[in-house]
């Protein structure tokens, strides 16, 4: 079994700025009191629904616009096209006074489509089916000079965002202005985008997103559902509601593109990799771009790389959008499984191989901890087990950049001692509200109970969109600057009134002190204010001594059991070590890691968009057949916040999703002795792999050049 099976709360105690704070909005979310954008309903609002193509490729033969307009309650039918290039592609929209009228209107419209031939897989493309090309440049010489070559092809599926709150918005026009309740990762971006559809000046548009039910990179743009809402609101001048239904959410709101990767590399018997050719093909649906994968990651020394060989491949399905660490989980799956295959061929422990190829000191230390916590010493030899239930251990890595953006945060100090923190930046689920409150409370020296936080509104001070994991690293410095200004202002008042030197004053647990002497309670100090005071903290987005300039790094280790009679993979435990500079609030920080592991495990085992090969219709655009990891499938997860003295807040949202699928795939390889090179790791694929022989090992004494095709 696993190592010490520790409690992550013990491991993480004392690592964060606010260890015991609970989410300020936890109760509201748990009880349903939290009002999401989708919850903004009005009796008098109009409903919008896009008219969508039901097939992979089709032309409109006929529709009955008059019949739709004749349906009581239908107010507008807009047709702007007559062909669709994927299931869910739109040719216009319908507006109605009720959801019922909307559905009856769509029925009456009776759109008839003539289906055409379509592509439903990247394998329909000859470039994908072709063997790997000739290696070019220095990599060719490096591979030639190495003892062995290794070739393999890997693939990953299209993963949809599956946001529980679907994409959309509710618009309330009000004379010259409008309030837009959008489910968005970028309140200010929506304000930029919606104006031209609404026909209103940006300065008159207020975008509001107090809570969001899922945003992993696909909610930066307003989408067709938002554009239609804007146009409908402009025409009617009244409130308009436009949200995707569950099926539309799977079809037309972006996805993580599929990947096919061909690898040829040269290595020596000791595991040294001298060079590699890497070809990647991104399955981008109808989009011309967006299918890139991050491989090589740069985390490992793979020698000379011939790696600028990426092509996006089109087929008849909805296109990609950024999804939590775009390009990274698929790249990590390929690279890390490939490393384990090399390690196996050379008879080397995959952890030892990583230590050799990875020069990050921080990850070096993380490897030790991950190995101890998962119980790596009990890892069996790959392919050594028989019996129906086999255990496997796998390890994989991640890193994430150091992006930051300018941000402003306002703090209002009320005469009753209450602190109001105000930022227009939304909470994409990371705990923005709590983090900002905790920074201000900790920095000033008062309990978090003194603080309330207003977020997610474009009237509030500006900040970044929730992308690239920059939000917390950008807003935390602004919050700290605002807290310093507010504290210094109050302390200056106290010093002046009591004739003290302000530099001797500090605030400790809500009491202003000079040395050990208590001067006045925070609330009483604030009572002296004639009216609330407001200060604005600003961060310019540039690195500095406190906030640092480093990236986030991580190592994850997985323990699985594979039922070799059925091909079922059970992920039992994942240890997820992640650095993020200074974690601000322990619980939501751990929650980011846990959420990343869950999403990554779901990607490893279950998720894939399935198209009907004949018609291009998506067969699983629902939660019955688009399988997402459930409670019984969830491993024990041990999130480890890795601080090692770092100060500034760094990226945490995206990196934890990167290594999970790779670690699980490596654990499955360890358990069954054969690599499964295609995600998801379905029972049929595991059974097919088990029918193959265990890949041969290279005797370490061998020096003759051998061609082994994997």
């Amino acid at each position: 079994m696993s190592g010490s099976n520790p409690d992550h709360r013990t491991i993480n105690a004392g690592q964060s700025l606010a260890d015991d704070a609970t989410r300020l909005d936890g109760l509201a979310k748990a009880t349903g009191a939290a009002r999401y954008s989708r919850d903004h309903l009005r009796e008098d609002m109009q409903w919008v629904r896009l008219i969508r193509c039901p097939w992979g490729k089709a032309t409109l033969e006929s529709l009955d616009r008059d019949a739709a307009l004749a349906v009581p309650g239908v107010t507008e039918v807009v047709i702007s096209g007559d062909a669709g290039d994927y299931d869910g592609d739109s040719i216009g929209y319908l507006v109605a006074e009720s959801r019922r009228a909307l559905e009856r209107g769509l029925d009456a419209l009776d759109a008839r489509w003539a289906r055409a031939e379509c592509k439903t897989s990247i394998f329909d493309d000859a470039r994908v089916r072709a063997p790997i090309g000739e290696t070019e440049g220095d990599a060719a010489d490096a591979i030639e000079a190495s003892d062995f070559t290794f070739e393999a092809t890997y693939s990953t599926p299209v993963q949809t965002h599956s946001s529980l709150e679907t994409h959309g918005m509710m618009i309330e026009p009000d004379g010259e202005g409008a309030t837009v309740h959008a489910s968005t990762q970028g309140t200010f971006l929506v304000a930029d985008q919606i104006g031209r559809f609404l026909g209103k000046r940006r300065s008159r548009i207020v975008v509001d997103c107090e809570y969001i039910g899922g945003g992993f990179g696909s909610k930066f743009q307003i989408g067709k559902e938002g554009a239609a809402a804007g146009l409908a609101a402009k025409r009617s001048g009244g409130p308009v509601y436009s949200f995707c239904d569950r099926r539309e959410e799977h079809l037309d709101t972006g996805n993580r593109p599929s990947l096919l990767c061909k690898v040829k590399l040269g290595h020596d018997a000791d595991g040294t990799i001298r060079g590699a050719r890497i070809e990647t093909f991104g399955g981008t649906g109808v989009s011309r771009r967006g299918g890139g994968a991050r491989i090589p990651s740069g985390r490992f020394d793979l020698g000379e790389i011939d790696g600028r060989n990426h092509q996006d491949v089109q087929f008849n399905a909805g296109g990609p959008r950024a999804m939590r660490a775009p390009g990274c989980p698929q790249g990590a799956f390929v690279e890390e499984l490939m490393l384990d295959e090399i390690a196996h061929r050379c008879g080397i422990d995959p952890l030892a191989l990583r230590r050799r190829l990875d020069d990050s000191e921080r990850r070096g230390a993380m490897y030790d901890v991950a190995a101890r916590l998962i119980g790596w010493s009990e890892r069996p030899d790959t392919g050594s087990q028989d019996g129906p239930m086999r255990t496997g251990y796998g390890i994989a890595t991640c890193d994430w950049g150091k992006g930051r953006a300018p941000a402003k945060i306002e703090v209002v100090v009320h005469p009753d001692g209450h602190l109001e923190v105000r930022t227009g930046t939304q909470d994409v689920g990371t705990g923005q509200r709590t983090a900002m409150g905790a920074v201000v409370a900790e920095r000033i020296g008062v309990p978090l109970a003194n603080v309330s936080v207003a977020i997610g509104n474009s009237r509030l001070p500006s900040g970044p969109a929730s992308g690239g994991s920059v939000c917390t690293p950008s807003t935390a410095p602004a919050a700290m600057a605002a807290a310093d200004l507010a504290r210094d202002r109050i302390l200056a008042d106290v010093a002046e009134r009591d004739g003290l030197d302000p530099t001797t004053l500090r605030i400790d647990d809500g009491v202003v002190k000079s040395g050990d002497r208590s001067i006045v309670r925070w609330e009483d100090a604030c009572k002296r204010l004639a009216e609330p005071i407001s200060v604005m903290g600003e961060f310019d987005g540039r690195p500095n001594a406190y906030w640092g300039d480093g990236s986030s790094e991580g190592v994850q280790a997985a323990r699985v059991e594979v039922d070799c009679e059925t091909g079922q993979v059970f992920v039992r435990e994942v240890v997820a070590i992640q650095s993020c500079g200074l974690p601000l609030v322990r619980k939501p920080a751990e929650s980011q890691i846990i959420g990343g592991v869950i999403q990554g495990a779901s990607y490893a085992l279950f998720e894939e968009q399935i198209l009907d090969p004949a018609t291009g219709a998506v067969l699983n655009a629902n939660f019955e057949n688009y399988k997402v990891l459930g409670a019984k499938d969830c491993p024990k997860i041990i999130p480890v916040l890795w601080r090692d003295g770092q100060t500034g807040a760094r990226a945490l949202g995206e990196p934890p999703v990167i290594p999970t699928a790779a670690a699980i795939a490596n654990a499955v390889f360890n358990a069954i002795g054969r690599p499964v090179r295609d995600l998801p790791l379905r029972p049929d694929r595991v059974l097919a792999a088990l029918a193959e022989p265990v890949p041969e090992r290279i005797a370490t004494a061998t020096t003759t050049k051998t061609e082994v095709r994997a």
Partner: protein
Amino acid sequence: MNPFAYTSPKSTGEASSLATSKDHSLPVLKSGGMDLLDRMKEGLDTPGLVIDLTRIDDPALDRIEAGRIGARATLAAVSDDEAIRESAPMIAQACGSAATPQVRNVASVAGNLLQETRCWYWRMERFDCVRKGGEGCPAREGEHRFHALFPEGPCLMVHPSNLAPALLLLDGSVDVVGGPRTSIPMADFQPDPARDWRSTSVLAPGEVVTAIRFDPAPNSGFVALKQKQSFDWPMVSGYAVLDLDGDVIRSARTCAGAVAPRPRLLPAVDAALAGVSIRDDAAIRKACDAATEGAAPLPGTIYKKTLLPVAIRRAVMAAANPGGDA
């Protein structure tokens, strides 16, 4: 979803009359309504009248006792019932494995038996197929990984109910009111899919299921092999009922779910298991391998051929050790 009239009769007799009333098109009976709601939203069912059975004041419809379960009893209530767990563990296990706790708290046993196929082509209104009265089967050349290993007739669906194979093995029957008969043997509850591939059951309009009955079988077991352990339909499921003489199987009856358009009895396995000791792993394996006799896998269902003997063997072992780790 189309507009529909809604009524909640006070008795099964009234429900039966309403179901044959000419005042509304396509009247439909509803208990938990789990499957009906999905079908109505997709436009597969367009009832003019929904007859809600949940207001009928008749405790017998909810009562659970050894050998008899009221039609309206929830899957959760059945799986938690001590009498069922002891007298027919396979029934309790089959009900407890379906869907999610939320669904099991609402879904009824009759609704589970009458659930429509999960075939994703059938479930999408835009696809035509033989089961809808049209032409062909899009699954045949399409994506059919969850379809039949033993096709019967032109439709490649698999029967979706966890409960139906268990009832069939226990010589079960279905109590009905509102028609000329009062009971339908489980073996006759579904028409032969090779002749009638459109009907879920032989129930006539106006016939209302009031209970299911079955023989006790303390040595019975159920195993579902699912891709996901939360909220998934089985890839293959196995059912076994044993008559044991000590460790020796005097006689066995086995059945497979999710491999054919109806529960598939496995007489070849039953014959091979007779006289075998439950401790004789090799003999049990050999016997269960007979489960795949007659299999006609499609390219995408070949893996089910591997799963089937495993599901049956594990069901046999569960039947031999009721209350043990299944």
